């Protein structure tokens, strides 16, 4: 197996050579990947908001943001800075503690989930054994924040929006977890690195989407519902609920919900690309090409190229999915709340259970193809 580039190892070795103890070197290393990922996640908001507004404009034959920076690229920055400086209103009869805590509880788990997103063999903050399970656990914290925000606002629309958001998140978490379980069954590991490695070696043919087509669709639908994207944006349905649980929020507290929803979309797209689209794998196996050309896998320049391709492929796959999500949002109508819950409990849940059982049966029958 190609171990790829190991930045952490190289950094610690260099620091030890400079005279630091290994413990100090490790401590110096730790904040670096975290900072890089935080900055990358924040930049992804700007990119996604710009894409959203430009693609929505294209879908409606409009131009979209035009004057804020070249092609409107600075639109999200202008919105963000404006929101920071806007007056922060807490409604007089609202519960100030819950009102302030709500947006934070929604946003923090989303950023925390980037801990387990790998961009390469060693390009991950921490490769913990429970990897993908940690993400599922963290994503179920968000509904508590939404419920807090809706309940503390002292507004009927907020309360309805918060209840809808909680009901929706809880309903769609179960099919999503079952779809993940089917993938985990094949890779024999919860670690995101192992899940990608299990798909590698055969290029595009080895990706999980061919072994788990139903699981891929279930996961994508459930992920859209978790992100509250159209066709499942009932918690914020403007025509019914003003702005749902965000109704009473101004300034940066509203901005936090905005940030949370877009980072969550990017995160979901990254997780889909890791679970089903081979993560950092190039459509043609790089190992196979280097073998064909007779270049050793441990050649330094090849390792750098492989790492660069890995990061680019992960981000590219994620943004292809973000593009599909945006296009879906601006082309499909919203479902009703009863249709949403019916679909979640009466259709997605049985289908994902059958998918799980089928995967288990196939694993026993064809252990070669389904990770025996």
């Amino acid at each position: 197996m190609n171990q790829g580039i190991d930045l952490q190892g190289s950094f610690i070795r260099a620091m030890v050579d400079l005279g630091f103890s290994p413990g100090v070197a490790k401590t110096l290393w730790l904040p670096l990947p975290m900072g890089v990922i935080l900055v990358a996640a924040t930049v992804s908001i700007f990119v996604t908001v710009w894409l959203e507004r430009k693609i929505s404009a294209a879908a409606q034959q409009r131009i979209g943001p035009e004057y804020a920076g070249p092609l409107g690229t600075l639109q999200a920055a202008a919105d963000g800075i404006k929101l920071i400086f806007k007056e922060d209103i807490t409604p007089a009869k609202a519960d100030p503690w819950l009102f302030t805590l709500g947006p934070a509880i929604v946003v923090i788990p989303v950023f925390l989930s980037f801990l387990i997103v790998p961009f390469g063999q060693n390009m991950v903050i921490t490769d913990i054994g429970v990897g993908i399970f940690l993400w599922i656990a963290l994503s179920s914290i968000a509904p508590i924040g939404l419920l807090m925000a809706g309940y503390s606002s002292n507004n009927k629309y907020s309360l309805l929006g918060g209840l809808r958001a909680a009901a929706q998140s809880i309903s769609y978490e179960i099919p999503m977890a079952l779809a993940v379980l089917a993938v985990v069954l094949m890779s024999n590991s919860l670690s995101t690195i192992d899940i990608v490695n299990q798909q590698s070696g055969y290029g595009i043919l080895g990706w999980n989407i061919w072994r788990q087509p139903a699981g891929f669709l279930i996961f994508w639908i459930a992920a859209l519902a978790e992100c509250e994207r159209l066709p499942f944006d009932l918690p914020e349905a403007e025509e019914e609920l003003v702005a749902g649980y965000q109704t009473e929020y101004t300034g940066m507290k509203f901005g936090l919900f905005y940030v949370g929803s877009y980072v969550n979309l990017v995160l979901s797209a990254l997780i889909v690309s890791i679970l089903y689209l081979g993560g950092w794998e190039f459509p043609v196996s790089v190992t196979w090409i280097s073998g064909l050309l007779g270049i050793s896998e441990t050649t330094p320049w090849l390792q750098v190229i492989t790492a660069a391709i890995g990061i680019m492929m992960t981000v590219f796959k994620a943004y292809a999915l973000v593009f599909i999500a945006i296009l879906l949002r601006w082309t499909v109508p919203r479902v009703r709340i009863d249709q949403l819950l019916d679909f979640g409990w009466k259709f997605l849940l049985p289908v994902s259970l059958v998918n799980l059982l089928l995967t288990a049966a196939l694993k026993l029958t064809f252990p070669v193809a389904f990770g025996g």
Partner: protein
Amino acid sequence: MVMKAAADKNSILAPGEMLQSPAAPPSVTHDLSENVILTTVDDLYNWCRLSSLFPMLYGTACCFIEFAALIGSRFDFDRFGLLPRASPRQADLIITAGTVTMKMAPALVRLYEQMADPKYVIAMGACTITGGMFSMDSPSAVRGVDKLIPVDVYIPGCPPRPEAIIDAIIKLRKKVATESMQDRAYTMQTHRFYQRAHKLKPVPPILTGKYLQMGTHSSPPKELMESMGMPVPSALAEKTAHEETN
């Protein structure tokens, strides 16, 4: 905009009196912000606010049809970074599209109070400037929305075309561009409506399905059944007889 009375003796104002709506922005902090590095911060701050003026989805009459055309693909105000918001808490700008009646007036003031500072008002159409064609004999139209809330830009027309709204938005952007961060203390709203707690109490469900199971829904009326030659259920006949005696 409010300005402290100048200390010189030629002033028409009494000492300590505030001048309302001066022709120029206050010059007290002006020199400081012109000459010190703050000017760049001001520029950035103003640019951010003028680039993302979120208008509120508010419309009371025919002017909103023109405003709605502005949202659509032909005129597209998203080019200026305007993103319509349904909640006043997240809006920076209210375009009063349409006649405001006495009944709507408290609601409009309340919506304005609920918006977070800094906030702007564009009065759109003749009705919101003077009452328009309702200014002569209407018992209910408010004669100009500036009697209720402070207006930044007026758009004449009945109704104004979407291009006129774009012009107003550009004028408002120019106005925002000349503001200073230090004037915020003057322009911030201090007194707002209080909010009362919702008295939420459970009510029995109304959609129980019993309405359709009522006797009158399961069988036709007695007279109709008799005339059709259908047997009248004894319960129905007794019930009608009982009702007749009452």
